[in-house]
């Protein structure tokens, strides 16, 4: 089953490059996403039903942690594919006009876009399925390379700049993770643990501690760069703001999680080797620092897609914080990963509609959105409440659980700082969202009425409903899966 899960998007991706017609290619994208989701559901089902690992080879296999992140990725891609089809249809109608200087730009060929999208899915699936740290590294690097053409879909100068920064910073960052892998291998050299996750976990107690620490540091910096942990986050706002909305959604919702998975794998090995305090300390410090960075940059933000990007940095910080605190916070981290992915993807989808309506990404030039595009405005506002953690939502629950854990650990300073920066972020984002949604709207000359494309809004609405439901009631199977995933992330088998 894992084989077909990996091969399906790979084969479809190659096919998408070769296909000529746009319509069948879009159908291919849709059906691949649906089939992938179905297979994922099947994997999750067998995982929960049998409770044992579906291992096909030494390379690929699924534990609960991998399955959980695979689920997020697949669900997100399903929504993204539906959005992408509607988006590509509308892109074909409007030739691109640069919002900055008004120059006309072209888009990348649709075959390249769709093909890369599918291959991107394949590489992310490989990340979640990797049972070998070396292979995990190679897959994460592959995600960078395959998503770079996606960011450069609109062929203008700013997206090119963003693509270049993304490519270079992430590639160099990931190269450091390779160093981490080497350290990890050296730590287990005497015991013959290799780099395979199972072997490392089994022999964790025998690993050389100082080398293991070095390995974790490098892996953290490497995958942290990809995950958008401050201060290695500099590529993230640029890439998220310049990519098409669907790509931003996938980057933010799926790709960052994949990098987080890399960190969690390293964390699991270290925790099992008795270094939980060391790794926890690092995760907490950098998590909090990401929160601070996001809060500060949020206040003066003038671009709403960049604002969403900083919000992603914030949530990655929270995830790292949760992982660092451990215990119940790790579970909260899992819930946060799921809810953030869905909410942020929904918000990016909505931002695509906002952009299509307003033709600008500047916050100060958008107001009174509800008069022109009421459904978009409603989703925009709903997304705001969800992402800032208003109850009921999965994000509220995860943020609350992390706070609870911090207080339970008697870390009052941390809890206080955490609350303070969350409040700051709320204030910063409230200003933007409320200003954009309400207020008077000056009709621009020659503006055509905006027909809100249902295909672009439906996935966002569906995701938001899921998040709200997760805040109200977590089904038993999901609860079990997240618990098992949290256990895996803390070094349990």
């Amino acid at each position, binding site marked *: 089953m894992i084989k077909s899960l990996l091969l399906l998007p790979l084969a479809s991706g190659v096919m998408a490059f070769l296909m000529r017609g746009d319509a069948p290619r879009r159908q291919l994208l849709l059906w691949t996403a649906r089939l992938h989701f179905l297979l994922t559901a099947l994997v999750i089902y067998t995982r929960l039903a049998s409770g044992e690992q579906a291992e096909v080879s030494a*390379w690929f296999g699924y534990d609960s942690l991998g399955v959980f992140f695979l689920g997020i990725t697949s669900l997100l891609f399903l929504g993204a594919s539906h959005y992408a089809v509607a988006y590509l249809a509308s892109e074909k109608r409007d030739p691109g006009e*640069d919002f*900055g*200087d*008004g120059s006309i730009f072209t888009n990348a060929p649709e075959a390249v876009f769709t093909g890369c999208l599918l291959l991107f899915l394949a590489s992310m699936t490989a990340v979640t399925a990797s049972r*070998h740290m*070396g*292979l995990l*590294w*190679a897959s994460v*690097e*592959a995600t*960078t*390379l395959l998503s*770079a*053409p996606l960011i*450069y879909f609109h*062929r*203008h*100068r*700013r997206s*090119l*700049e*963003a*693509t*270049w*920064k993304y*490519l*270079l910073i992430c*590639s*160099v960052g990931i*190269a450091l993770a*390779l*160093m981490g*892998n*080497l*350290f990890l*291998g*050296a730590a287990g*050299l*005497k015991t013959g643990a290799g*780099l395979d996750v199972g072997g490392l976990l089994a022999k964790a107690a025998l690993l*050389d501690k*100082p*080398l293991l620490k*070095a390995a974790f540091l490098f892996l953290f910096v490497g995958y942290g760069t990809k995950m958008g942990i401050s201060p290695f986050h500099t590529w993230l*706002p*640029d890439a998220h*703001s*310049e990519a098409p909305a669907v790509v931003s959604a996938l980057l933010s919702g799926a790709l960052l999680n994949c990098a987080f998975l890399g960190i969690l794998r390293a964390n699991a090995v270290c925790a099992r080797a008795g270094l939980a305090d060391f790794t926890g300390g690092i995760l907490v410090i950098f998590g909090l620092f990401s929160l601070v960075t996001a809060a500060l*940059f949020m206040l*003066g*933000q*003038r*671009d709403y897609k*960049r604002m969403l990007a900083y919000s992603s940095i914030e949530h990655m910080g929270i995830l790292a914080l949760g992982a660092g605190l451990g215990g119940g916070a790790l579970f909260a981290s899992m819930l946060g990963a799921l809810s953030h992915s869905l909410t942020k993807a929904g918000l990016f989808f909505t931002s695509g509609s906002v952009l299509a309506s307003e033709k600008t990404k*500047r916050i100060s030039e958008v107001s009174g959105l509800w008069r022109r595009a009421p459904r978009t405005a409603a989703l925009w506002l709903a997304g705001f409440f969800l992402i800032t953690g208003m109850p009921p939502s999965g994000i509220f629950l995860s943020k609350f659980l992390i706070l609870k854990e911090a207080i339970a650990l008697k870390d009052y300073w941390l809890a206080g700082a955490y609350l303070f920066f969350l409040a700051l972020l709320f204030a910063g984002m409230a200003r933007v969202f409320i200003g954009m949604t309400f207020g008077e709207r000056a009709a621009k000359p020659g503006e055509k009425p905006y027909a809100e494309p249902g295909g672009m809004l439906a996935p966002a609405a569906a995701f938001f409903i899921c998040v709200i439901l997760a805040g109200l009631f977590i089904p038993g199977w999901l609860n079990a899966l997240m618990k098992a995933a949290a256990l895996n992330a803390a070094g349990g088998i």
Partner: protein
Amino acid sequence: MHTFAELTIVFIVLLDLSLAVAGSLSYCIKLVALQGVVAGLLPLLAASGAPHARAVLFAAVIVGLKGAVFPWLLMRARDKSGARKDVEPLISYPASILLCLGAFVAASWLGSRLPLPETHVAWIVPASLATIFTGFLLITTRSKAISQVLGYLVIENGIYIFGLALFVEQPMMVELAILLDVFVAVFVMGIAIFHISREFDHIDTAELSELNDWRRGEYGK
């Protein structure tokens, strides 16, 4: 044979230093290619006894990729971008070389502090760390996009040598996957450089500064 391997290591460090002072892009590309080839041959030199067929095959792949394919790709990117042929460093050459030497001192110190397994080839750990640092130096202090790709490759060379020093033998499949990734990275970066030169009429990354948080909104005006 170890003296020979040591000589090779010294040669790699000298290549680092010459990269720090090399002024012309094509010369830099050749130096990086040479370094990659030397690093690729290193395991054959350091090994005692007859090398395995697997090691020979792998070395051949590395030499072919780093010695022929990468320089070709980069030379093509350089020609197509019509860039000025020098690297235009942001700091002076003596400063570069002093930074490199400083890095080597720090790397030696670090290499002696790290609780690494005993290596039988002296200086291999400091040399690899210094190479990685040189890569960072190229990325941060050279303004041309091609130099940054070169810096990435130098970092990759350094990490490869570091892996040799630690005796971490990754399975063939992983090694090949890593190589494939590096290859695709260079390929994609090469395409990006081509687009940058077409869009901006230069490949000077210091001028890719439209995207930031503070001067947002002034673009195009």
